[in-house]
C-alpha cells in the first residue's frame, strides 16, 4: 500500500476533480492550517521575547530563576521541576498516539484507556504549572531597590533576578534597610534560633552581621519585561493544554456514548490528537526559550 501511494502521486491527476487533491478529509486539512496559524502566533510571541532579550545588556540566568522543586524547600535544584513537566508532556503525547492507533483498529476499550491516560497527563502538567507559578509569585527574594534591600517576588512589574551585589555595596545596602526586612530575611533563612519577634528587638548591627555572614544572595532588580513574557507565553501555552484536556474529555465522552462506533470510524480522535501533539510541540520551544538558553 505504501508503495502504491508513492507511485500514485506521480500517476494520479490530483486536481482533475472528484477526489481530495491532498488526499485527506476536510476536517484534518483545516486542523493542520489552524495549527500552522497557531504556530505563527506562538512564534511571534517567542520572537518578541527574543527581540527584547537581545536588546538588553543583562538577562537573568534561567538556572537561577527556576531552581525550586515543590517539597524540597530552599534546595537549589535548577531545571529539575521543569524537566519533570517536559517528560509528563512527552509521555502524554505518546499515550495520545496510542489512542489514535486504537481508533484505527476500532478498539473502543483501548481508545478509552489511552485517552484517560492522556487526560491524566494533561492535568498533571497543569498542576505542575500552577505550582511553579505559585512559587514564582509568592517566594520573596532580597533585592536592592533605591539603595536598600526589599523583599520582592517575580511578578509582571518586578523582577528580583538582577546582578548579584557584593562587598561594600552590599554592606551599605544592608545598613540602609529596615530592621523589619532584615529580621524577616534572617527568620526565613533560619540564620538565627531567635523567633521573628525577638529578631525585631535585636540591634540592627547584629542583624546586618547575621545577613552578611550568610550565603544569602542579594541582587539588583532585573529586566521588568521578563515577568510579562514568562507569564504571558507559558500562560498562553497552559491555556492550550487546558483546552486540549477539554477536547480530550469530549472525545472520551463521545467514545463512551458510542458516537464513533456508530459512525464506523474514529477519525475525530486523529484531529484531537493533532492538536494535542501541537501542544507538546510548542512546549518543546517554550522549554528551549525560557529554561534552556
Amino acid at each position, binding site marked *: 500500500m505504501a508503495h502504491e501511494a508513492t507511485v*500514485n502521486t506521480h500517476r494520479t491527476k*490530483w486536481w482533475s476533480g472528484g*477526489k481530495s487533491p491532498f*488526499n485527506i478529509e476536510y476536517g484534518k486539512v483545516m486542523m*493542520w*492550517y489552524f495549527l500552522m496559524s497557531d504556530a505563527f502566533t506562538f512564534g511571534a510571541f517567542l520572537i518578541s521575547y*527574543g527581540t527584547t532579550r537581545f536588546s538588553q*545588556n543583562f538577562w537573568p540566568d534561567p538556572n537561577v530563576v527556576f531552581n525550586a522543586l515543590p517539597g524540597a524547600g530552599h534546595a537549589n535544584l535548577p531545571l529539575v521541576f521543569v524537566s519533570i513537566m517536559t517528560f509528563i508532556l512527552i509521555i502524554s503525547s505518546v499515550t495520545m498516539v496510542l489512542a489514535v492507533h486504537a481508533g484505527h483498529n476500532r478498539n473502543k476499550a483501548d481508545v478509552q484507556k489511552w485517552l484517560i491516560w492522556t487526560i491524566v497527563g494533561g492535568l498533571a502538567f497543569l498542576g505542575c504549572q500552577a505550582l511553579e507559578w505559585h512559587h514564582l509569585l509568592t517566594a520573596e527574594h532580597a533585592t536592592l531597590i533605591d539603595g536598600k534591600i526589599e523583599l520582592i517576588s517575580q511578578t509582571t512589574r518586578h523582577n528580583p533576578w538582577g546582578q548579584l551585589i557584593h562587598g561594600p555595596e552590599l554592606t551599605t545596602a544592608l545598613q540602609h534597610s529596615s530592621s523589619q526586612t532584615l529580621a524577616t530575611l534572617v527568620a526565613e533563612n533560619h540564620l538565627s534560633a531567635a523567633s521573628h519577634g525577638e529578631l525585631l528587638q535585636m540591634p540592627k548591627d547584629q542583624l546586618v552581621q547575621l545577613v552578611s555572614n550568610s550565603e544569602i544572595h542579594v541582587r539588583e532588580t532585573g529586566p521588568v519585561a521578563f515577568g510579562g513574557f514568562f507569564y504571558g507565553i507559558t500562560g498562553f501555552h497552559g491555556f492550550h493544554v487546558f483546552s486540549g484536556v477539554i477536547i480530550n474529555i469530549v472525545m472520551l465522552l463521545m467514545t463512551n456514548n458510542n458516537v464513533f462506533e456508530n459512525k464506523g470510524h474514529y477519525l475525530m480522535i486523529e484531529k484531537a490528537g*493533532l492538536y494535542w501533539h501541537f501542544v507538546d510541540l510548542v512546549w518543546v520551544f517554550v522549554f528551549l526559550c525560557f529554561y534552556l538558553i
Partner: protein
Amino acid sequence: MSSHYDPTKDISPSAAYPEVTVHHHHSDDATFKKRVKKTTILLSVITIIELAIGFGIYFLHKGEPPYFLVLFLKGIVCILTLAKAYYIVSVFMHLGDEIRNFMMTIVVPLALFIWFIIAFLADGQSYKDLRNKYDKHFEETTMPAPHATPSAEPAKGEGH
C-alpha cells in the same frame, strides 16, 4: 458521507470520506509499537542531552563564562530542539505520511520563520548597540560587571 448508524453495514473511513482516494497504510501492531517506542526513546534521550547541556551552562556560569563556548552549547540545544520538533511532527502527527503537495502547504509557509527570527533578533541587537552608544546611563546601569569582583569577595563569591 452520511453518518447514520446502519448495523448491517460496516462503514469504513473510506465510505465516510469518499474523496480520500488513496488510503494510508496502517502498519501492523508490532511495527507500529516498535516505531512509537523508538521515537519515545529518541525524544527522551534528546531531552536528557539538552538537560545535561543546560546543567553544563549552569556550572560554566559559576566561574568566568567563556562567551563562545556558552553560545556554542546554546546553538547545540537549539538544533536538538529542532530535531525533537521534526520527530513529533513527522512521526506523532504523521505529516511524513501525507502526500507531498499537502506537506508543502504546511512546511513552505513556515519558512517565513527564517526571516522572522533573523530580522527581529537583529533588530533587538541593533537597539541595544545604539542605546549603549548614545545612552551612557543605560550602559552603566545595566552592563554586567566584569567577573573579577566575585572572586575578590569570597564571602559572596558563589556568583552564579
